[in-house]
């Protein structure tokens, strides 16, 4: 039985919003980890002083460190998970927090995305992601399949019964946003990421990431993880390695993974994202308790 579930955040929320939520005590810890990571990766510890690709890497590093700090805070308060699940790059955070990989390796993984950004620029590939609120997975799939090929646009992640992330060519994302707005989306907007995370097109731009994952030595995780790709429980080093390999260029089903966890006995979810971004779209219509960082701290 998996009763207590830890949810790990992916790259997404603005780093300012995450940092604003940390308590002074946790901020001290965060600063120590962040500065250590920056020294290792050759980045300035002042995010604004990083330029170009380094600027993005410095920002992307923030949710990883925030998740770690909040995770360690939970453990110190005696809140331990029965299983964990990572949203997108949250898979890397979960792998590190559960000791399947060292935290230093998680930082290197973030750094490996630098070559992805360079490759995208060199290929003049204009990609993007977007958020659609108000459509079920089936309704959105049907709507998009009439207008777009999967080469151009996919549902990168279905997050809940009403919330999805779309991913693909920037022009297709833009057109899909307009289409969804006209068809009754409660909200639809572009994320302007410049990448198409969870679209297969990202595989060819993620060679350094894939090579790094291949070379990395994984351990069995301290706690099992739920796969957002095939909805299986991951408890061995090989399974966690596969989950990390698939990340970046494979479609996720966060909605079904959460549902699967409920079938396996979940009663309490702990959203480790500092700003509660995961629980916002995961909690609607659920009977289970979903604790945010604010709840954990109070």
């Amino acid at each position, binding site marked *: 039985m998996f009763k207590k579930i830890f949810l790990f955040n992916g790259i997404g929320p603005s780093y300012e919003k995450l940092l604003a939520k940390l308590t002074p005590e946790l901020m001290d810890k965060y600063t120590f980890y962040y500065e250590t990571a920056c020294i290792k990766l050759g980045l300035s510890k002042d995010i604004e002083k990083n330029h170009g690709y380094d600027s993005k890497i410095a920002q992307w590093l923030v949710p990883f460190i925030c998740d770690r700090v909040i995770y360690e805070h939970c453990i110190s308060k005696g809140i331990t998970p029965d299983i964990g699940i990572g949203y997108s790059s949250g898979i890397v955070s979960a792998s590190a927090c559960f000791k399947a990989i060292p935290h230093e390796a998680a930082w290197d993984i973030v750094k490996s995305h630098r070559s992805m950004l360079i490759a995208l620029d060199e290929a003049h590939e204009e990609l993007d992601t977007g958020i659609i*609120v*108000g*459509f079920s997975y089936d*309704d959105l799939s049907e709507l998009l399949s009439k207008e777009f090929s999967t080469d151009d646009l996919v549902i990168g992640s279905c997050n809940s019964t*009403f*919330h999805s992330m779309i991913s693909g060519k920037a022009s297709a994302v833009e057109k899909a946003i307009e289409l969804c*707005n*006209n*068809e*009754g*989306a*409660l*909200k639809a907007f572009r994320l302007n990421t410049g990448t198409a995370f969870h679209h297969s097109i990202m595989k060819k731009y993620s060679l350094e990431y894939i090579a790094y994952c291949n070379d990395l030595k994984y351990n069995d995780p301290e706690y099992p993880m739920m796969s957002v790709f095939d909805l299986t429980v991951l408890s061995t080093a090989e399974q966690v390695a596969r989950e990390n390999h698939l990340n970046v260029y494979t479609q996720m089903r966060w909605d079904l993974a959460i549902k699967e966890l409920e079938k396996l006995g979940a009663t309490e979810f702990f959203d480790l994202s500092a700003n509660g971004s995961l629980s*916002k*779209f995961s909690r*609607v*219509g659920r009977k289970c308790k979903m604790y945010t960082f604010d709840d954990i701290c109070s």
Partner: protein
Amino acid sequence: MREITNEIKAEIKDMIFDYYAEECEVDKASINDNTSLQDDLESDSLMLVELIEMTADKFDMDIKLQSIGKYMLKTPMNTMNDVIDMFCKVYQFGNDIVEQ
């Protein structure tokens, strides 16, 4: 079309004010009909989804989010009064709200 009484209207308004007060961590007494969803409460679309789900549960209705979305295309939600008005129409017309 379902009849709506003053009592139901008051119940809907109360539910909406309670929800936003708790979710946006503001004193309920500070919310009024002219309170701006964006400027005063920094509300988002996910809050609206939760309110729709609560309304569906409370009044035993089957509400399609796209019906609300299409209604909002014609009638944007800016103030608390807009929200109350929309949820009263949801109660009355259900998914036919889009034709109102």
